[in-house]
């Protein structure tokens, strides 16, 4: 009878079952915030006037959005986070540990069946682990951290079944972009997307994470790849069902200023770029850096193009070092940044100047997102990004992967 989201929310609200549209107060299993949202959360907790935080032991803070600090203002906020964490015994992942979502995955802080509340919109990514993971703002995070609970409206569920086999040069980013094209920026608004991986071969954990991450751009509240025992009932009721045959996908790209503005890469080939960014919680994992290195190995980034590569976490960075991926990328002319959100959030490390164009592996191409409002941002897979860095213009990566 129940979808995965309904099963998890029923367990968390100690109910036998829950129905879409119903309001429930759920127990939260893990809560986190970062330097973009934690400082406000700390203010709210102070204003609540409480001295104990019920979820302190099941929470974490991350300094990732502007790390290391690029400004005095950020430094003040970081200091405030460190003092707060020390005072309440909250685990803080400091500068250099990486983007909150990747660190949560590296340390298995989200588990199947958990209700995860993150003060970041891309918290949907932890659906790849089988959690009901929801992005919230600072006040909601403060409430969850203080009380251990949060109210939710039980969402409807869209079932998406991924079928077929990915062609050479087509990746999970392209699957997510294809879905964004179909659903638009609000096609899954207030809903959970439940993903069923029937691909051959199956998606890696990293590839699933990219899809759950980008589901936030479809408006989704959560984006779950079900894991036993939280799998949906056979007769679960869905709002809608989508079957996506991934065999016929080609490399895709989102044109500015919306992530749903998706076309085949071949349609925008030859647009010149000033910057390529490979990183972020969407595509800064080992297999993302690996494919970029495969394309860039023994070659050089086009002169005049800045190719900024930022591993999503220290663990990713370490593995990329061990596997000589970093070596390959540096020799190809890439700039390697420390694990951080980097230019994706427009804080630092590769902001765009007026009229500049970037190809990014991140998640948002909104006006002004990565710097000047007149700059243009295209979103694509790490393979498309690496190929584009080589040519200095947007290019279909498949020719670099054959043979």
């Amino acid at each position, binding site marked *: 009878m129940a979808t995965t989201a309904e099963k998890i929310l029923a367990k968390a609200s100690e109910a036998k079952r829950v129905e879409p549209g119903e*309001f429930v107060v759920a127990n939260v299993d893990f809560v986190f915030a970062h330097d*973009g*949202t934690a400082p*406000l959360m700390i203010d*709210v907790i102070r*204003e*609540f*006037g*409480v001295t104990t935080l019920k979820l302190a032991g099941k929470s974490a803070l991350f300094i990732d*959005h*502007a790390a290391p600090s*690029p*400004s005095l*203002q*950020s430094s*003040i*906020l970081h200091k405030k986070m460190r003092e707060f964490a020390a005072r309440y015994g909250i685990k803080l992942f400091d500068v250099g540990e990486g983007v909150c979502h990747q660190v949560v995955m590296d340390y298995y802080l989200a588990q199947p069946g958990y209700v995860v509340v993150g*003060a*970041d*919109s891309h*918290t949907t990514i932890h659906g790849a682990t089988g959690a009901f993971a929801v*992005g*919230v*703002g*600072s*006040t*909601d995070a403060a*409430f969850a951290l*203080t*009380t251990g609970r949060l109210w939710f409206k039980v969402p409807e569920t869209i079932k998406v079944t991924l079928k077929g086999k990915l062609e050479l040069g087509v990746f999970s980013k392209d699957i997510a972009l294809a879905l964004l094209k179909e659903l638009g*920026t*609000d096609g899954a*608004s*207030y809903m959970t997307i439940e993903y069923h991986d029937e691909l051959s071969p199956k998606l890696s954990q990293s590839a699933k994470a990219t899809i759950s991450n980008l589901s936030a751009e479809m*408006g989704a*509240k959560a984006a779950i790849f079900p894991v036993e025992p939280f799998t949906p009932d056979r007769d679960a009721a869905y709002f809608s069902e989508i079957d996506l045959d991934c065999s016929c996908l080609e490399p895709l790209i989102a044109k500015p200023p*919306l992530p749903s503005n998706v076309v085949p890469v071949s349609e925008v080939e030859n647009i010149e770029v000033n910057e390529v960014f490979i990183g972020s919680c969407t595509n800064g994992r080992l297999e993302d850096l690996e494919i970029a290195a495969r394309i860039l190995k023994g070659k050089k980034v086009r002169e005049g193009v800045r190719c900024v590569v930022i591993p999503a976490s220290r663990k990713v960075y370490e593995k990329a070092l061990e596997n000589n991926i970093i070596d390959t990328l540096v020799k190809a002319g890439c700039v390697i940044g420390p694990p951080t959100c980097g230019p994706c*959030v*427009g*804080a*630092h490390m590769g*902001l765009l100047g007026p009229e500049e164009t970037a190809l990014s592996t991140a998640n*948002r191409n*909104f*006006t*002004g*997102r990565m*710097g000047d*409002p007149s700059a243009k941002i295209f979103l694509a897979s790490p393979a498309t990004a690496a190929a584009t860095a080589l040519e200095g213009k947007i290019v279909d990566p498949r020719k670099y992967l054959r043979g």
Partner: protein
Amino acid sequence: MLRGKVIKLGDDVNTDLVIAGRYKFRSVSVEDMAKHIFEDIDPTLASRIKPGDIVVAGKNFGCGSSREQAPRVMVVAGIAAVVAKSFARIFFRNAINVGLPVLAVDEKFVDSTFEADLLEVDLAKSTVRNVTRNLEVNFKPFPQQLLQILEAGGLVSYVKKKGALF
């Protein structure tokens, strides 16, 4: 009853457009950030907003980043409410939590409302009235507790008033 002039915006106004990331990490206070509200939509907009103004927008207002600074800078700038075809979910929650009324109304009402029209919002009766064009529309009433949070001016004030978190 809220009464104010319309600031008309389009579809998919994301939270980066409300307050750009480049200011978020350069400012310590929401008051500082509020000077740059809507800058990437129109750099002159911030100086034209008057306390009590009401934003009227298209679909999916507040999509994107979970930054609660977005509804907070709107409150600081004096915006009394947002009336839109639909809202992105994180923004919706954040707005209620900071005491900014967010009202989803019929598309036709939004399409027939223009910049500088005079609006009246009655939260208790769940109505929005365009005085200039003599139009009225109902919105889905808020659950009682959310209405109380809004009336208190946000979750923090609500909790203080109640004296407990539950």
